């Protein structure tokens, strides 16, 4: 038991590693604050393209979505970070994370929002257009608010996944929480920093997990 505490819950090491873990935690928050909106923008664009517009564009949007849902995000990230420089395109770690998340989480948000838009009855668009609203206005004021509400549990759940996914940025050496924890672990030969990082992730994301459960139960009860 003492051995366990020494290896995993070591107060001295935690005190020592605290400053860089805290920095990593803030970095993770910043990453989430950037990748979630990026993914949402990509998702809205994809959802609009795959629900309106000519058939060819709808099919192209669906193909794009499937493509980036099939490639693991880490593969995409490694490709952007380590592969592209061979072609003389160096987007850097930040660029790789931004592009990778835009493509990957955009595809997931897009799929969720598409389902939301398709869940809004056709009469809503007709009613809005019949009062003189343009297509864009109808989408913005009438269709999208209902679409978002209809798939809110899925949207929040996807957001949880995006925040969790920021941990793969450690692979391209961005100093977020997991990366800093690994650094501290390497320096101290002790697992406590990683346990601390796990606890931090849990405390950050547990409320979101509870919220999703509540939303899903509510959606289930409403059926």
């Amino acid at each position, binding site marked *: 038991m003492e051995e366990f505490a020494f290896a995993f819950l070591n107060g001295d090491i935690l005190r020592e590693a605290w400053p860089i873990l805290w920095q990593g935690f803030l970095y993770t928050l910043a990453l989430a604050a950037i990748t979630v909106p990026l993914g949402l923008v990509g998702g809205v664009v994809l959802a609009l393209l795959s629900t309106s517009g000519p058939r060819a564009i709808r099919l192209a949007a669906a193909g794009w979505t499937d493509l980036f849902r099939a490639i693991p995000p880490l593969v995409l990230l490694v490709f952007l970070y380590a592969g592209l420089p061979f072609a003389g395109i160096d987007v850097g770690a930040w660029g790789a994370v931004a592009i990778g998340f835009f493509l990957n989480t955009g595809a997931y948000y897009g799929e969720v929002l598409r389902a939301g838009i398709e869940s809004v*009855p056709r009469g809503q668009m*007709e009613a809005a257009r*019949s*009062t*003189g*609203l343009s297509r864009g206005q109808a989408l913005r*004021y*009438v269709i999208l608010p209902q679409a978002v*509400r209809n798939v809110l549990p899925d949207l929040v759940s996807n957001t949880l996944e995006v925040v969790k996914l920021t941990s793969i940025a450690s692979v391209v050496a961005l100093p977020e929480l997991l990366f800093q924890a690994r650094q501290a672990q390497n320096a101290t030969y002790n697992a406590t920093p990683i346990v601390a990082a796990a606890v931090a992730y849990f405390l950050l994301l547990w409320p979101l997990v509870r919220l999703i459960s509540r939303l899903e139960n509510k959606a289930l009860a409403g059926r």
Partner: protein
Amino acid sequence: MTSPAPSPSRGAPAPGLGRPIVDARGLWKRYGPLAVLKGVDLSVAERELVFIIGPSGSGKSTLLRCLNRLEEPDDGSIHVDGIELLSPRTDINAARRRIGMVFQSFNLYPHMTARQNVMLALRKVLRQDRAQAEAVAARALERVGLAERMDHFPAQLSGGQQQRVAIARAIALEPRVMLFDEPTSALDPELVGGVLNVMRELRQDGMTMVVVSHEMAFARAAADRVVFMADGEKLEEGPPAQIFGEPRHERTRAFIRQIDRH
């Protein structure tokens, strides 16, 4: 209005009424090999109430939905209030706010209160400021007898009340003509009266109206002209007394016999 020609008349408006405000000519609409409209003409005078009846699949709803271009006709021309609706140069959104439409399934926006439902187009199409839009919406909702229910969401209203909000949403834009697509078909019988009352009042205020409906009693009492459609064609038209009393066409007779049995 006892024109002897039974078949394709030019849809002349009843005498004594104003100039035509809706003038649709030679409308064709096909879905693949199936022609739903086969060169239909319809002209509606200012302040006139035209009733369109016919069996299901006769094309009457399609005709109505062409009049604000929710359906795109394949051929023909439509003038509303002097504007050529099908011309590519026409700003369809500007034109549509002069044409109110009421749907069978109400199509209220469920995420907005009654008042917000009415205000949306006032704000975004007519560009009214909030205070003005609120006042106009309140007046429109008063007109349909729902002043007390302005801040209710559609889910908190009965079907009849929802349909009256939908009418308020359309009349708030001060349209030149109102289109009603089976406005009472989705309502429980005891709620139909309230909606018909509102329509009657609109008529008294001089609103031009085109109504697709099975409310034959209302048609008899309130319509200036009744149009009978079957298989994508206008078979005959005339004052309600004539269409219901002495229809010329065998199909009209059969249809009215069947309706009266209910």
